[in-house]
């Protein structure tokens, strides 16, 4: 509906009367000032106008002609503008221009120019995309714009909070499908803090055991019972981790929050709740496909 949200009838009349009235008033003012060179030479009280130097008085000469045309011309432009574009209340203007309409037009132009290619990209195989250097450069720009603030421009992770995307370790799974899901829906890790349960000494022992995991000689460790009871459900009996739960492997040397005894203790004591925000509504299918291609390329490459 044209002008659905423009002012109603009363305010349209209000705007139109004031605007047109002002234009007419200004037109009259400009006209009368210009053509009033021979105005009566008396002021409101009927006293004679002061005259200096014999012939110098107010209104003796009309303003220059260019001045008249400048003002009159701007009035003409105003009238033309108000006829062509929305301005007078709910009158939409002869060109039917609107901000929303302009936006729709530019979206349609964008779709016409890039829509086909973007759909091709969204459905292409990852290998095809990875082989195209230009597309990978686009993917890198999408990465820089959307991912680098957390994961870093080199994708190696940052601040011991945001994971490295270039190594083989993927907390939530490294398959293209798992990476796509991480991007679209985000991830929320949920490890609770164990300090209330284990006490400080228990946390320290468990941290030591966790550090020893994967180095073999841990079977006889005193904290193994606690590990089996509290940790194995998510991280696995052998510490292999579980990408479905986002529980990382504890056997390798990759540790997001640090591998030192202190860092492990801190993780066990107060828990970790890393959050990856969902980008499914911020990025479209094409952009997500390109990101998946970029990230899987960096893993294998």
């Amino acid at each position, binding site marked *: 509906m044209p002008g659905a949200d423009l002012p109603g009838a009363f305010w349209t009349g209000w705007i139109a009367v004031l605007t047109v009235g*002002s234009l007419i008033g200004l037109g009259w003012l400009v006209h009368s000032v210009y053509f009033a060179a021979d105005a009566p030479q008396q002021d409101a009280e009927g006293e004679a106008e002061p005259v200096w130097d014999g012939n110098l008085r107010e*209104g003796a000469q009309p303003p220059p002609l260019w001045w008249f045309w400048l003002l009159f011309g701007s009035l003409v432009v105003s009238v033309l503008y108000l006829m062509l574009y929305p301005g007078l209340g709910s009158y939409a203007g002869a060109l039917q221009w609107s901000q*929303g309409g302009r936006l729709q037009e530019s979206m349609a132009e964008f779709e016409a120019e890039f829509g086909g290619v973007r759909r091709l990209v969204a459905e292409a195989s990852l290998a095809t995309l990875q082989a195209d250097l230009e597309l990978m450069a686009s993917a890198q720009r999408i990465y820089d714009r959307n991912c680098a603030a957390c994961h870093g421009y080199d994708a190696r992770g940052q601040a011991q909070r945001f994971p490295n995307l270039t190594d083989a370790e993927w907390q939530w799974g490294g398959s293209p499908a798992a990476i796509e899901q991480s991007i679209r829906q985000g991830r929320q890790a949920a490890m609770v803090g164990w300090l209330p349960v284990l006490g400080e000494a228990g946390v320290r022992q468990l941290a030591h055991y966790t550090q020893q995991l994967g180095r073999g000689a841990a079977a006889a460790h005193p904290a193994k019972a606690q590990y089996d009871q509290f940790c194995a459900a998510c991280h696995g009996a052998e510490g292999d981790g579980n990408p479905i739960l986002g529980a990382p492997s504890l056997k390798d040397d990759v540790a997001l929050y640090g591998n030192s005894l202190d860092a492990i203790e801190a993780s066990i004591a107060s828990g970790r709740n890393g959050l990856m*925000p969902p980008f499914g509504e911020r990025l479209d299918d094409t952009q997500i496909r390109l990101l998946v291609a970029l990230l899987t390329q960096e893993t294998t490459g």
Partner: protein
Amino acid sequence: MDGVGLHKRLEANSGLLIFGILLVSAIGGLVQVLPSIFQDSLVAPTAQTTPYDPSELIGRDIYIREGCGVCHSQQVRPLLAEIKRYGPYSRAGESAYDRPFLWGSKRTGPDLHRIGGRYSDEWHRLHLIDPRSVVPNSIMPAYPWLAERPANRGPDVRRRMRALQALGHPYSEAEIAAAPAALAGLMEIDALIAYLQGLGATLNAGGFDQASRTAPSTREQRPHSADGGDAHFAPEAAG
């Protein structure tokens, strides 16, 4: 009477001159400002817009105090490039509970109107305390003191909520009574993050290209504009 005669009369009578000046300078406001005050879609909150909760309210004050608006705007304009970069363009009704609004016009940093949900709270914390720790080429100043000051160090938040209530923000008595408890234990940085995470988040959740108007608001005391302020930009083809 011609223009010169009128001019002379006005010149000789200063009372008339003052009245004339006021009349002429009021015309712009009468045409442009007055009708929009009575235009529901411009002043009514969108369906998803709710008043700020206490921590967001304090966070907004910190945002103003620290001058964030000097470098960050809060309005995504209805232009293709901006929508592609930031998200859905800003609706007038989204600012219904902003007193004053923080639209801004200068972007030294990026626009923040759709920042909500884009980063985790943890990222915001690191970034506010030391922007370079996560964005090496950032020119944003660091705000480490936000993490050291309690959020409720200023005047009682209940007085602020009462003032807003008097201006028509639908706070219930229970919400106002519970406000100090909601701030207990929070630092200023937590309040600011709560405010940032709420920016545009309701509209983000409704969909990227088209604002969903089905999500019910938790507070319905005030009439909402039927179209979420969207029709102001509605293309002719929509009808």
